[in-house]
């Protein structure tokens, strides 16, 4: 079961590197009683919402640069890794193909 709550995320703790794209719908999952965050930031990093995007023709991205690419409902978007590696960029709240998504790093 899922619901359609729209949610925006911000970074509050440092974790392991991983490329993940998440659709922002919530569904019931298993137990999380063993939650013990190791490092929580005193001041959360400001959330990135409504990020600027550009077309493939005008994008200033090198051909050899790595991107995370995703297609949702016929629309596609690339997230250059070289724009995601700092702590302030680890979460990009976005919308694609009518779906609220978050690119996290």
């Amino acid at each position: 079961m899922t619901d359609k709550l729209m949610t925006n995320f911000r970074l509050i703790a440092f974790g392991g590197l991983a490329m993940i794209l998440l659709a922002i719908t919530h569904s019931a999952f298993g137990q999380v009683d063993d939650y013990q965050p190791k490092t929580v930031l005193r001041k959360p990093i400001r959330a990135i919402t409504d990020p600027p995007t550009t077309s493939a023709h005008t994008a200033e991205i090198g051909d050899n640069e790595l991107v995370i690419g995703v297609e949702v409902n016929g629309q596609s978007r690339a997230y250059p890794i070289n724009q995601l590696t700092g702590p302030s960029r680890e979460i990009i709240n976005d919308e694609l193909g009518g779906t609220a998504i978050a690119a996290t790093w």
Partner: protein
Amino acid sequence: MSDLETDTEWSHLLGRGMDGALKGKTLTPLISDMVTWDVWKREYPETTALNMSQTSKNYSREFYREPTQFVFGFKAIGKPWSLAMDQMLKRPVHQFELGDEPLLATFDERGTVTHLFSRDIGGQTLDFEQVDGLTMKDHQTSSHWSMITGSATAGAMKGIRLTPHVGIMSYRKAWKNFHPDSSDIAF
């Protein structure tokens, strides 16, 4: 991470609400690719792209410095598994079965990314080998397939696409921390 609406704390590797009003909820992972920009543009010419300032110059160098640090993690038959990236580097087309599910992992050395597909096409299990670069062929029909998209590009299967599976590239240590019951795929 936390969300602005309820201040619930989430694990961004698990995509799961860990503490707060949405504790126990999980976000749906999307299938995504990590590829070079020229490959992505070729596959999706109408794509848009994030347009923010750079925070680093060339991420892929990080991977090649120490590929043993990374795994491709995924879930199948109800539990987590990991594919060692240094092994994928040596064997870019790797076939295995989990339960009754025939799977195929491919590795794009230039994009430093693993893709995972089902090898089942309408009840028929296909076996693959790498032809060259990012092209593979199946033994049953000799059709040629893209190792990135899982689409048949030539032969009897042209136009057919293998079903992709969701997975993530992660530091080995982080994957194990979040999935202590994960098992390594044998090579």
